């Protein structure tokens, strides 16, 4: 069906043009109308005039009027004079309703940022975020000290349920992932070790790397994706719903009421999860050892027990506590800085996970170096 409107461009003098519009202009034809308008408006240059001649319009709805009015505003901003002329009374009322007779305000044009500017700004923003996280940590320490002085003031009610959600519910995925990591790593190593006849060393390799490194790190990554994201989203939506403000007016600090129980819950469950993750990793390695390296179950376990020291396990657990602190801290800080609406909650949740992953790897690297320097 052809559109029910007509547009013709008429040049009435050297710097004066008209778009003669007629027929029925409705949302149904808005697509072709817009294309046509855009094609014709290019004929006017700065300093010239391009009016909308409306006498032949039979009917116009809000959508079509909105298109015309916004085109007029854009022409004005480009320095082209443009008005609605010769409209009937009914059409004129719609023009007025949609601001087609307003004075158009000039937009201030923003200079596009150059790459170096953008880089500078991003750096400043990143440093600012880091400062905020550190300040948040400071507040948390103060608040934690307050609770140490009067334990009754803590919000213990949320602790068990948070521990269940972050710990017990995460157990299956943590165990499966660490089991598979142990399995995959042992497989990679098996071929090399078999070549040198050093089959039994697979127990050393898996035992040490799982307890020191992979168990804590893989567990932290899983918890970051589960609990970190959940904390950021929960606190973020509380913030944008004004619930945090309401807590403040009731004299209840969000740090004490929301952040500390979550942090404490993670600090308590992460080492437990990590121990189980270590066991799962060793089990994964053992299956490969027994399957393809002709080791016995007892032999493998015996070798593992011989090489893995208390220090290997406990240094992993120390790391897991630091990881727990980092996950909760960053997630809660990001959540509480949400502002605006649902969209910002999503953005903050994403950034909580990304920033935390980065922090985990960084902490892991630093801790490994420190432990090595400490002579272990």
């Amino acid at each position: 069906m052809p559109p029910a409107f007509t547009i013709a461009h008429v040049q009435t003098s050297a710097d004066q043009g008209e778009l003669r519009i007629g027929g029925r202009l409705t949302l149904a034809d808005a697509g072709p109308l817009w294309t046509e308008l855009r094609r014709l408006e290019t004929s006017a240059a700065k300093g010239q005039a391009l009016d909308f001649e409306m006498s032949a319009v039979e009917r116009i709805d809000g959508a079509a009027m909105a298109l015309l009015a916004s085109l007029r505003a854009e022409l004005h901003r480009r320095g082209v004079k443009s008005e609605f002329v010769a409209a009937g009374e009914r059409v004129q009322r719609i023009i007025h309703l949609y601001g087609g007779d307003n004075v158009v305000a000039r937009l201030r044009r923003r200079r596009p940022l150059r790459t170096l500017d953008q880089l500078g700004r991003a750096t400043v923003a990143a440093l600012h975020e880091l400062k905020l996280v550190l300040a948040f940590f400071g507040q948390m320490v103060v608040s934690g000290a307050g609770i140490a002085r009067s334990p009754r003031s803590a919000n213990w009610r949320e602790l068990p349920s948070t521990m269940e959600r972050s710990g017990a519910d995460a157990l299956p995925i943590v165990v499966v992932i660490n089991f598979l990591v142990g399995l995959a790593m042992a497989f990679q190593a098996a071929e090399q070790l078999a070549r040198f006849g050093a089959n039994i060393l697979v127990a050393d390799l898996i035992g040490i790397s799982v307890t020191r490194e992979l168990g804590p790190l893989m567990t932290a990554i899983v918890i970051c994706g589960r609990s970190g994201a959940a904390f950021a989203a929960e606190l973020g939506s509380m913030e944008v719903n004004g619930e945090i403000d309401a807590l403040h007016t009731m004299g209840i600090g969000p740090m004490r009421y929301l952040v500390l129980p979550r942090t404490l819950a993670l600090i308590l469950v992460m080492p437990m999860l990590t121990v189980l993750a270590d066991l799962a990793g060793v089990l994964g390695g053992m299956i490969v050892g027994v399957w393809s390296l002709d080791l016995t179950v007892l032999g493998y376990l015996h070798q593992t027990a011989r090489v893995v020291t208390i220090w290997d396990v406990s240094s992993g657990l120390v790391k897991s506590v630091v990881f727990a602190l980092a996950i909760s801290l960053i997630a809660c800080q990001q959540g509480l800085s949400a502002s605006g609406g649902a969209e910002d909650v999503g953005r903050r949740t994403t950034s909580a996970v990304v920033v935390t992953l980065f922090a985990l790897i960084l902490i892991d690297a630093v801790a490994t170096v420190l432990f090595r320097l400490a002579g272990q």
Partner: protein
Amino acid sequence: MSDPVIQVAELSFGWDGATLLQGASFEVERGSIFVILGASGCGKSTMLRYLVGLDEPGGGRILVDGLPPGQGDSGRPRFGVMFQTGALIGSLTVGENVALPLQEWTDLPPDAVGGIVSAKLRLVGLQKAEDQLPSELSGGMRKRAGIARAMALEPDLIFLDEPSSGLDPVTGVEFDELILALNGQLGLTFVVVTHDLESIFKIGQRCIMLDRESQSIIARGDPRVLRDTSTDPRVHSFFNRTRPEVAT
């Protein structure tokens, strides 16, 4: 003899760049019902945030009982606040929301807290919703629960942001009567933000009207008197629901 609970001097504020109010001063008398009026978007809710100490204003000084609103009494809230949307804690039931400040700031045993919670909820007509979550309530019900929570600690000063918008006319009237009763019988002070003309004339004893254009308080006093005598066209049109004559 004047005994102000709230003293505001030279208050200025705005959102990045756009000033909403400049150099405003006013006082709220103890035991009165004080109404803050103004067109939508003129900064009433924003002003409330400063009055209750959630944000620091750009300029000026606010004292509640002689102290800045965010301070005093080792963190125990000195007044109750109801937000425009209720702002109930979404993970707690209505009853738990009202109980929260009581658990936090009193040593009452759980059954006593429960008794107070039921009584407050009955006061706002929500006794049946005690075990429901905020997400299961209508907008007006959330608002009423918010008022019950604001009254939980028996404060003698209560801030209400648009208590009657979103309520049906009957509930709205009941509400006005509740506010009048609490004010008359217990001597509570109310600071109420509202557009509802009927409610303004019924409960408002003093008012200020904010205006975004002039960034100032354009009227103050008894709303009924202002309605009948104000010569300012902006004030007149607000109280008489007419469009202001635009001078061209």
